[in-house]
């Protein structure tokens, strides 16, 4: 059993809001963690019922596909390239 790295955990979430694993993922997040919304999970951005963590990013192609680019704040959209960079920086990753 190890110490969590300073960078926190990278949580990669692909389930739509309301999915049990979507709920479980948000509940498992700590302050220093980062949430990345991909695939169906990007629907959390326009969802008025979801309160997202401070450090939330979303995959740009998934937002664009669903007509949601306008719902992301500046700097919140990431490319696949940036996703790879985030996985470089985070030794600890959970795919939900």
């Amino acid at each position, binding site marked *: 059993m190890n110490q969590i790295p300073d960078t926190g955990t990278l949580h*990669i979430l*692909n*389930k*739509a809001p309301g*999915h049990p694993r979507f709920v479980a993922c948000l509940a498992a997040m700590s302050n220093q963690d980062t949430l990345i919304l*991909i*695939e*169906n*999970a990007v629907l959390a951005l326009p969802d008025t019922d979801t309160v997202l963590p401070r450090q939330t990013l979303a*995959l740009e*192609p998934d937002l664009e596909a669903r007509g949601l680019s306008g719902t992301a704040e500046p700097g919140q959209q990431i*490319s*696949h*390239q940036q*996703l*790879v*960079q985030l*996985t*470089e920086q985070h*030794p600890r*990753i959970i*795919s*939900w």
Partner: protein
Amino acid sequence: MSTTLSYTLVITGAPWASQAPQTALAFARAAIAGGHRLDRVFLYGEGVHLASSLCAPPSDEPHWPQQWSDFLSDNQIPAVACVASALRRGLVDEREQNRYQLPAHNLRNPFEIAGLGEWVDGTLKSDRVMYFHGSA
């Protein structure tokens, strides 16, 4: 600046039933472009359907198994379908066809069939193990 890392990608979502193979392929391309190494792609559970040579989507639609095959061959990345997952779901190579006396084999090149030990090996040797699940 960035260091070179090694990755194992595990795909558990099936093509057409999920976005997992597409997301994984985009990630894999970005990882290679970023100077990283892919140790292995491991198909598990429903993910094994990606290795079928018999998928024939309409010509104006994307062909995920074909795209994955091309990517794996071009970059010489080993790809493995879990044997237990594959046999249950009707995914067999010639050896398994003969062993179980099945009427055909349908494992797409360059995928191979092997056990979960390959996944365990990935968790031990790769710097990162990324999972691509279905979203249902």
